[in-house]
């Protein structure tokens, strides 16, 4: 099974969960015998990846594309082109998206693939071009829709249109959760029979984390824990749909009852200054720590999950949400909103409606004040995690690849 896989990022050069998901998914696909050529929009070294070919989409005459990982959202990214003379120039995301499309089209003409698999709207134009040229089955994988990213409004009409085209012309759609499938059906009028749910898993091993630190970053927090403090962790982009204002409001009630509680906020984003200000207004300056951005596959990130007594993901909207899985992987219990895709899957976590601030403080206090609860949630949650594997999801994907690749062959004979 030869797969032309179109993605936008892979760790360690990544900004969000999608890269981590693509990495693990491809690793398991390769284990199941898939031969994957993964096309990225930028040039980078991937010493961890020997199970597939990773190629950057290089425009004519360009020898290197440098991606900026600093932007907090994908459409604010920019790229730098370097040519063989060492000259460089910056381009906007949309210009580079066109170049990516041309590169993929060229590749599709030159090589033979069994299926095309594209991740999210950024790669859909390229995927459609490849399908048009080769008539190979197209699988589009939806990690998040524009509807999700715009917090439940229409969002950018151009992006909506590209998404819609991709969803309409795909032979099969993989959605990462039931909630995402529902969104695709409701917001994009797609036939539910065409959509398969392929849940994510979290199976990163210790050896796959890169060394971004040689020390334990959170010694301070451990000392405070020794003095009776409990540490609550939030990790992810600081944007409105992550629901962090609600968390701060709830945390204020927690600190009122239990002053020895610390909230560790890991991540960056457009709400960064707003959240700092808001925590100051609530009188929480002494209890909230902002770390700024930390790479999601590095050891510092892992240490944050490891030191915490409770991980909280209070998202207003979250198509999946990989972070609670990372928490359970480190034996840290998780509290998540019912509005996340992860809550469809995980049972041994605390769940609530993101707007229920009183319940959020109630559950946080319960974990802080009862170590039996913390331990039981961690034990049962980790045990549950062991049964949520990429193997299961990849088997489903392989099945559909084969089905469509076969159908395509029959049609063309």
């Amino acid at each position, binding site marked *: 099974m030869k797969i032309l896989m179109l993605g936008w990022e892979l760790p360690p050069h990544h900004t969000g969960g999608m890269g981590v998901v693509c990495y693990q998914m491809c690793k398991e696909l390769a284990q199941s015998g898939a031969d994957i050529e993964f096309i990225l929009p930028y040039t980078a070294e991937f010493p961890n990846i020997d199970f597939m070919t990773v190629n950057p989409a290089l425009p004519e005459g360009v020898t290197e594309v440098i991606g900026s990982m600093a932007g907090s959202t994908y459409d604010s990214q920019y790229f730098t082109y370097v040519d063989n003379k060492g000259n460089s120039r910056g381009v906007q995301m949309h210009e580079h998206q066109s170049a990516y499309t041309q590169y993929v089209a060229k590749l599709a003409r030159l090589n033979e693939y069994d299926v095309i698999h594209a991740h999210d709207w950024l790669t859909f134009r390229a995927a459609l071009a490849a399908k048009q040229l080769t008539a190979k089955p197209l699988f589009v994988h939806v990690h998040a829709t524009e509807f999700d990213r715009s917090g439940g409004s229409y969002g950018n009409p151009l992006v909506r249109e590209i998404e819609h085209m991709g969803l309409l012309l795909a032979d099969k759609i993989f959605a990462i959760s039931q909630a995402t499938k529902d969104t695709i059906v409701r917001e994009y009028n797609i036939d539910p029979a065409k959509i398969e749910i392929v849940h994510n898993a979290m199976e990163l091993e210790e050896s796959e984390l890169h060394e971004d630190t040689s020390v334990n970053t959170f010694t301070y927090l451990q000392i405070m824990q020794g003095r009776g403090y409990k540490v609550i962790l939030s990790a992810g982009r600081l944007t409105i749909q992550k629901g962090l204002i609600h968390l701060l409001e709830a945390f204020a009630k927690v600190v009122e009852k239990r002053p020895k509680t610390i909230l560790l906020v890991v991540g960056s984003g457009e709400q960064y200054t707003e959240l700092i200000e808001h925590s100051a207004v609530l009188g929480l300056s002494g209890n909230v720590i902002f770390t700024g951005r930390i790479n999601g596959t590095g050891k510092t990130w892992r240490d944050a999950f490891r030191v915490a007594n409770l991980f909280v993901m209070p998202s207003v909207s979250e198509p999946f949400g990989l972070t609670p899985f990372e928490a359970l992987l480190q034996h840290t219990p998780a509290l998540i909103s019912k509005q996340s895709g992860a809550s469809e899957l995980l*049972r*041994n976590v*605390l769940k609530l409606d993101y707007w229920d601030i009183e319940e959020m403080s*109630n559950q946080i*206090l*319960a974990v802080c004040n009862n170590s*039996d*609860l913390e331990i*039981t949630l961690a034990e049962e949650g980790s045990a549950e995690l062991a049964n949520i594997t990429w193997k299961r999801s990849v088997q489903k994907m392989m099945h559909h690849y084969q089905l469509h690749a076969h159908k395509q062959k029959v049609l063309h004979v």
Partner: protein
Amino acid sequence: MSDKRAIVLYLHVHQPYRVRHYTALDVGHRHDYFDAPEGGRENNADIVRKVAYKSYLPTNEHLQRMLETHPDFKLSLSITGTVLEQFERYAPEVLASFQRLVATGRVEIVAETYHHSLAFFYNRDEFEQQVVMHREKVQQLFGVTPTAFRNTELSYNNDLAYWADKAGYTAILCEGWDPVMGWRSPNFVYQPAFTSNIRALTKNYKLSDDIAFRFSNRFWEEYPLTTDKFLDWANASWDQPLLNLFMDYETFGEHQWADSGIFGFLEHLPKAWLANNSHTFMTVSQAAESFPAVDTLDCPQTITWADTERDLTAWLGNRMQQGAISSLYGLTDMVMSTNNLSLIEDWRRLQTSDHFYYMCTKYFNDGDVHAYFSPYQTPYDAYINFMNSYHDLKYRLAEAGQPV
């Protein structure tokens, strides 16, 4: 000694006081742990009325008619203090129907703890007080004094039998669990090890659970269960004196719904059984004195009638359960020395075993029987509500000048 073979039908009636959604922010401000708002999943009045309608009223109507039709029909009931109180308050017509059954003289009431607690394993004084409370409640409402004993969830060990023997009971009930029975059949009377007068009746779990658990299960290879089929199985042990059918009363109409045909089965069974002249029914105390003990029953470990393990792990299996119950009993001396009756009563209501059952994580991932009986969505919700109530009890103790 009786020359007739007897079915000993024993039904257990119980409802706990479920804890409402009680948050950390309620602690120290309100103490109404058991008063869920109307329409809430944990609203006790709603649940008692619902079960009265589905189970208690129709079942008692059937039982009453069976008692009137068949002079040989008899049964035994254990009814906890917590459910009796709730009948008095929310469904007095149910209490009256139980009183009519007992007034026939052919329905025996079995003793137990008033609060359906696991106090026997944590505090012997508290356990004995709850047994006395239950006895007095039964005397007050039914005018009888129990002579047989069952402990919460049919939990049983040598110690309990020894205690019940010393307390003057003539019969005690337990699960006829294979590791304890060995090669022996549950259809005989046994003498518990190290006791003098008391006799043990052992539940025939195979035939009991065919009715209680499997009756309406369409995937069961024996489905549907008819009285003919059931009596065929029962008659396979024709030369053994007893058939101990022990189960939750709520089997009838609540666990097995009316549309499964369970009431028809209940009504048919005595008729079909008594059609044979060498068959009869007995209450538990009557069975214990009608047949000699054939052997001693040695049970150093604690067994119950729950789950495939038949031990206490459904209530005390995980750290939340263990921590919650030992925290609660840790308050015993302080609670008792307040002499504050409402505080003592709230503390006792929290001892009801159901609270710990709701916190069980065993099988939570399969969403099984435990989930069916829980008003909470997860074992963690159950634990959080319970522990917040516990923290409020401590707050009240502190207010009362106790050194918490």
